[in-house]
């Protein structure tokens, strides 16, 4: 027999999932009670019906599809660029102390600057077209990713490299066949975490004179006090982030079966 409140103990997985469902249902019930019961004004908290109506209207008019497409394109562009830049630099930093010395302090300095503070400069340098939005997402994620990738690379066990050395491997072979292979799951995880931040910076980026996009629509809805739209778009962004996260985790487990908790003997 298990106890539900046992301190730091496993609970059966069906109990775990039941708790998740119960918490979600609780939030839904509270939402319905507050709105349909008339306890709060719709401007602060729209009812599920209001949000549903706003959603169908935006979907039917094609506004949602256009916003969604634009935002995905921007996140994808900025994020892919960040991956392409950060993985090689992170690898170099993790493998060569001299490159780490040249880059790390500068990045450690930049990483504490809030991305929104760069916006005036970005407008000045890159204008207000699509490129500037991608640039915001790129700067926000690339700086973090370089540092995180280099950390993953540095943590590869020195003993693995020693083994490869005694088998006759050259430094290039060790980098490719040992360090890279050992780092890959960690690097995929870094990507997963940073994709979440990329969506956050998207909203920041779309404050920049955009005329389409999920973040833009939220800000516009705020001006019109149309909270239903804000709620719908927030739910979309949350669901999208969650979907990406799950996709990354599943593909990680599939690509790197050796990292799975239980392999069976």
């Amino acid at each position, binding site marked *: 027999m298990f106890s539900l409140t046992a301190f730091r103990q496993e609970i059966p997985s069906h109990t775990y999932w039941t708790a998740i469902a119960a918490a979600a249902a609780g939030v839904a019930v509270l939402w319905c009670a507050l709105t349909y019961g008339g306890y709060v004004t719709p401007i602060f908290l729209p009812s599920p019906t209001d949000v549903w109506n706003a959603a169908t209207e935006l979907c039917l008019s094609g506004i949602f599809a256009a916003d969604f497409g634009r935002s995905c394109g921007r996140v994808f562009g900025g994020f892919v660029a960040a991956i392409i830049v950060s993985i090689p630099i992170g690898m170099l930093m993790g493998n060569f102390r001299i490159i780490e010395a040249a880059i790390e302090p500068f990045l450690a300095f930049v990483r504490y600057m809030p991305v929104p503070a760069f916006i005036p400069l970005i407008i000045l340098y890159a204008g207000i077209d699509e490129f500037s939005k991608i640039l915001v997402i790129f700067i926000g994620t690339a700086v973090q990713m370089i540092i995180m990738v280099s950390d993953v690379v540095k943590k590869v066990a020195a003993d693995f490299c020693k083994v490869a050395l*005694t088998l006759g491997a050259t430094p290039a072979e060790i980098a490719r066949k040992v360090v890279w292979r050992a780092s890959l799951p960690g690097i995929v995880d870094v990507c997963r975490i940073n994709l979440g931040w990329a969506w956050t910076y998207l909203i920041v980026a779309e404050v920049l004179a955009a005329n389409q996009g999920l973040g833009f629509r939220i800000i516009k809805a705020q001006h019109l006090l149309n909270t239903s739209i804000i709620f719908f778009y927030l739910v979309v962004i949350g669901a999208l982030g969650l979907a990406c996260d799950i996709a990354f985790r599943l593909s990680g487990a599939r690509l790197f079966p050796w990292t799975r908790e239980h392999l069976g003997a």
Partner: protein
Amino acid sequence: MLLMIEALTKSYPSRDGRPPALAEINFGIEEGEFVSLVGPSGCGKSTILALVAGLIPSSTGRITLDGSIVGKAGADRGMVFQQPNLFPWLTVFENVTFGLTLKANRIPGNDARVLKARADSLLEAVGLAAFRDHYPRQLSGGMRQRAALVRALVTKPRILLMDEPFGALDAQTREEMQELLLHLCRRQGTTVLFVTHDVEEALILSDRVLVMQAHPGAIIAEVPVSLQRPRHLDMRADPIFVELRARMFGLLRHRVRKDISQMVVNEGMAEAENRLRQA
């Protein structure tokens, strides 16, 4: 002599003028011979192995294998560490054939297919044939270490260096591994330089045991083991074995006592220097 070590020393830069890690080391190993280095921790036995393997540079002296000076690490000196260090992302077979994927081992006369077949026959010999396509984490500690042994042997090293390879295993697995190693070495005629702090392990496996002391690391005695071959673990009851063991313990105990008295002297000196400085 297959391996020759002459006037080898190793010291690490330090402020307090500590004794060198290795004073002057001289010894050789014949082809097919099994030699062990035994001594207390800190005597530099693992350092000798790392120097022969080419993982660290020596301070002075020279190491020759087949008459030519050994340089950086290479597959001619196979190494087994205390931890198996198998690559978790490769299967057992991929791990043991990892060396074959390296440029250094793709030399004329090294037919990859022949060597892969050799890998399979070695896996068979150590009882891992059924686990060929398993990942390391699916194996027990002893099985992993057997795979590490095969990995070091696949590329046909001239000498096998083993750094306390069974030190992390439980007593029963350890004995199994000793039996296995005796069997493999007889079959393959492998030359081995073996490091351990276990006197019995050294005696049962070796043709010769080199006893070391610490501070500074040096070889203080050479003990030939006249037990006949083939060896098996029951020989630990043999009168020759019992006598050798007593002699080895005597050598090590004597050294430890001397080390402690030396330490007292050293600390007394430091104390005296401190007082002088204060005065």
